[in-house]
């Protein structure tokens, strides 16, 4: 049913992603799909990496590590954005097409007041993506 499952990840907050990642790997095992971990960062040095090159390497390492630990095929994709704070949603939506994903599994927070002003990334991706999106809270 699903061949490529895209999992957006923030390497600075991996601890908060466990539920979504476990859910994604269970689905990948069930459908024999490949997981594509996607990370978005600015080209400026940040808390995860100092250069886009280092970031790409970290994403690749993360995917390999996760794939092995969870026993599924996994790839890493590092994307750079000029202003990740505001460009995260369009960047992820583009990534769905670029990676050929047919399902997105992503973490989101419990909606609160600010979601009326700044909708959550999970909410926006679910609203705009043409593929199935599973938002894990």
């Amino acid at each position, binding site marked *: 049913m699903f061949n490529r499952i895209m999992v957006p990840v923030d390497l600075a907050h991996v601890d908060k992603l466990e539920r979504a990642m476990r859910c994604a790997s269970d689905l990948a095992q069930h459908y024999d799909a490949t997981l594509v971990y996607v990370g978005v960062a600015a080209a*400026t*040095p*940040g808390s995860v990496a100092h250069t886009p*090159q280092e970031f790409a390497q970290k994403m690749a390492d993360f995917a390999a590590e996760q794939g092995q630990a969870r026993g599924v095929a996994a790839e890493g994709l590092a*994307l*750079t954005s*000029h202003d990740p*704070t505001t*460009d995260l949603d369009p960047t992820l939506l*583009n990534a769905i097409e670029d990676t050929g994903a047919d399902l997105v599994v992503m973490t989101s927070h419990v909606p609160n007041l600010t979601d009326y002003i700044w909708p959550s990334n999970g909410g926006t991706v679910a609203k705009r993506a043409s593929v199935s999106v599973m938002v894990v809270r």
Partner: protein
Amino acid sequence: MTDTSASQGIPEPEGSSQIIETDYEIGQDNFETQIGPFGLDIHNPVFVVSGACIIAFVFYTLALPEQAGAAFSWMFSAVTQGFDWFFLSAANIFVLFCLLLIVLPVGSVRLGGAEATPDYTYVGWFAMLFAAGMGIGLMFYGVSEPMSHFASSIGGTAAEGGARTDWAPLGAAAGDEQAAVRLAFAATIFHWGLHPWAIYAVVALALALFSYNKGLPLTIRSAFYPILGDRVWGWPGHIIDILAVFATLFGLATSLGFGATQANAGLNELFGVPVSSTTEVVLTSAITAVALISVMRGLDGGVKVLSEINMGLAALLLLFVLFAGPTLAILTGFVDYLAAYLTYLPALSNPIGREDTNFMQGWTSFYWAWWISWSPFVGMFIARVSRGRTVREFLICVLLIPSLVCVLWMSVFGGVAIQQVVQDGYTAAQEAPLELKLFKMLDALPLASITSFIGIILVIVFFVTSSDSGSLVIDTITAGGKVDAPVPQRVFWCIFEGAVAIVLLLSAGGLQSLQSMVISTGLPFTIVLLVMCVAIWKGLQAERRIL
């Protein structure tokens, strides 16, 4: 060349660049929390201390206006008059340093590593750096400054007790109309040409180099790493960053306040909108609201789009004035004024033994302190959008091209205004107050109501582009160099800046005294900039060795 799309897959290897090995991890001093529904990711203590200092200064200015006014204006005079030689010498060093880097082999070092590709097209990049760097000043001084220098030059020199009392540049040009025009433009271009852009270029280059090639966070303190080492992550670094936030926020808030008064005067002239503090508060709030939308849309969706709109409108107005005015005379003037600038440049930039004290201290030294106090903001913003350019390309585009654009702008706007006085005897622009000179000059040209309206829109949009890029810069500094801090933080700084402007607008003399204080910060930053030159040199040498 095209914009690299936001989604470009795994970036190509960026090529060799020498990352500085430090134990400091970006964001390690940050404090991540949730206040109500708002997420925060702020640097501790830079965010809190700079915010508290800004509030304390505003209260001080409001509670004791006379004392604060006197203290700040004393500081301002002491700085611009006592250290005029220092500002002039330092600015000359920055120009020479930048020109040297263009011609030396280190100019081939690429920001972001040997194979990095530019983040923005030339048009988008240039529009953003120009809108943040000068923008609004050109609208007000494009007409008024050449006129002031022309009037003082043609008036000749005057002395009392052996000291010059006139404001003319150099030896003036008493009674000689042609020479006075040339001297006026040479002096104006001197203040808007190579020197200010070299000041911005030094800061921007230092930050871009230490961030993109050395892997240090995008904050002012990073440029000090070669000198202070790991101490930049402690209090010496905190103080540098706090000072930068301070100068940026007050610089923006005071400009925003003055801008609102000027826009109000323009609206009054055009549409009869009453000049009152209510109108000014409404204007400030409106400018802040548009800036808010812009920062929420981000660098590409907000700031870049507005900068490009601005650039298009400014070009339109420039072309209109060029063709509606005496086109041939203006174009001949452009070449002539450029030649005059180069002829008078050595004398105008001479820091010692000058007789034209009023001009040197009241104009040049003031401008240099002003540009330098703005340099952390403009420099950091330019750095943010300049990844992927070589040092040579960067300096040509940040130093030489903007200087030429300024020469063209001044030649067109100032040229038409002076022609109106000299040849047509039309003196309305000459006699008008600063904020109306542009509109009075446009009045004498065809389609005045349309061009004046474009002029007002430009003034307002220039303020918006300063406000939004400033909010992004302050947000990055107060988030310890992280550019992906939560949106509410940049929203906070944008609103805070508008609120400070409104509070100062409503207080008598508050804007004036705080602006004096901001300009005084130019003095410590001049030392910071000189240190940056050394740091850039060291950093570029290390990059060259590994190429």
